[in-house]
């Protein structure tokens, strides 16, 4: 009926959402549990391990180790766990690597789609909520063992500060004020950050704290990979500030790692 045709425009409030578009028009592309598969997969799929985020003076630092494990085997030494979500935010993934990477990709597309259709960005709060809904969507898969728990951080342009959010498997969203870590080595990383975090840290200091925490996590947790000097693989580190999402160059990360390891070698007399 013609009347319904124009009214639909107002009801269709999900017009700017890419996820709703997929659900409506290409449901086969939606990530999530395959219907009928009720049990956990026979073999453990690769899992990403430790990611963390630290707030500092200019914004936030996000960092993650580069290892994925499947059971007691290394599945990948070079996996990337920190993704640019959009110009002012990033998402760090921990948990089942496949669904987690897919979720990050879908989240990126969702934010970009919204931005293009609406002509402006979602607020940081809006982005964090959207991610929480996506994690809730993954709950059936999580019940089968494919748990995805990201960490979301970004620069809030309105507040002029960095903010970070952690999640649980049901999509629960909790804002953390200063730092947080997620994944199998997260407890150790958090413990390290608890001692290292200071108010108003500069970039250098925040970078060092993040790397120290990752190295501690790699020390204590078998799943987390430390800096690999032989192959030249180092944690991936990003900063998100007023000037956007930026990679910390590999060289800088390597120098910082080497400095930390040198300090520890000096201090550790047989401990």
């Amino acid at each position: 009926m013609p009347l319904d045709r124009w009214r639909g425009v107002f009801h269709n409030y999900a017009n700017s959402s890419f996820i709703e578009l997929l659900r409506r028009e290409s449901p086969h592309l939606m990530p999530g549990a395959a219907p009928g598969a009720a049990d956990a997969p026979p073999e453990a799929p690769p899992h990403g391990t430790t990611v963390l985020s630290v707030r500092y003076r200019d914004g936030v630092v996000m960092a993650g180790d580069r290892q994925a494990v499947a059971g007691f085997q290394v599945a990948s030494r070079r996996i990337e766990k920190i993704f640019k979500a959009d110009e002012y935010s990033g998402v760090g993934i921990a948990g089942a690597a496949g669904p987690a990477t897919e979720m990050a990709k879908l989240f990126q597309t969702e934010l970009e789609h919204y931005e293009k259709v609406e002509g402006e960005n979602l607020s940081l709060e809006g982005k964090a909520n959207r991610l929480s809904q996506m994690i809730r969507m993954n709950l059936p898969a999580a019940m089968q063992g494919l748990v995805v728990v990201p960490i979301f951080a970004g620069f809030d342009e309105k507040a002029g500060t960095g903010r970070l959010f952690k999640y649980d498997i049901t999509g629960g969203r909790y804002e953390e004020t200063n730092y947080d870590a997620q994944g199998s080595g997260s407890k150790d990383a958090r413990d390290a950050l608890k001692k290292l975090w200071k108010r108003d840290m500069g970039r250098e200091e925040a970078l060092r704290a993040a790397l120290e925490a990752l190295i501690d996590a790699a020390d204590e947790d078998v799943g987390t990979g430390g800096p690999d000097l032989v192959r030249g693989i180092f944690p991936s580190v990003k900063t998100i500030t007023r000037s956007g999402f930026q990679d910390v160059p590999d060289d800088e990360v390597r120098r910082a790692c080497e400095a930390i390891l040198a300090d520890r070698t000096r201090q550790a007399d047989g401990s």
Partner: protein
Amino acid sequence: MPLPYYVSPEQMMKDKAEYARKGIARGRSTVTLECADGILLVAENPSTLLHKISEIYDRIAFAGVGKYNEFENLRIAGIRHADVKGYSYSRGDVTAKALANAYSQALGNIFTQDIKPFEVEVLVAEVAESNGGRNEIYHILYDGTIEDEHDYAAMGGQAEEIRRFLKDHYGEGLSLADALQLGVRALTVTQNKSLTERDLEVAVLDRTKTRRKFRRIPMEALGQLLGTAR
């Protein structure tokens, strides 16, 4: 039930085309120019919120003239097409050609099947990845006619005159400021007023940017660019 009046197909198409052309002619024009670092899109548009030019995908931009609600619908449909395609295959597989074909099909179907044709013309531009590569510019008319254009393109009420002006004045390898100035002069070719940055909406597909090449030029920067070229 009374029988509808018979109207010959020729007459019906002619009437529809005339109707669409009249609608488009009422609106302001848009020009697109290839320049040294990409593709420049310039629209006469005093609104800073209702856009005629928009980003579709990494290297693809959209411009529309005519009835706003109609080309806005087409714009969103284009973004959906591109995002779904890029998500299911890869970002590199999203092309202006496929999108332009989709627009052509859609407008062609609307023109022949609906009582009222769309009063719009749209343009899809894709900037080449590298400096030597070919840019692509597709111009789609209200009846689904599709043309691929080189160097420059014009749409809207004064398109004919603008095209004639650009034919005489366009040269390859223009800098951004020169291309902008030429575009603005082209837009005013049939009017005896001059356009300032307040009357313009300008965006560029900037090859030097990483991944998302689309960049709007804000009003202050526009004033500066127009100033340096003056």
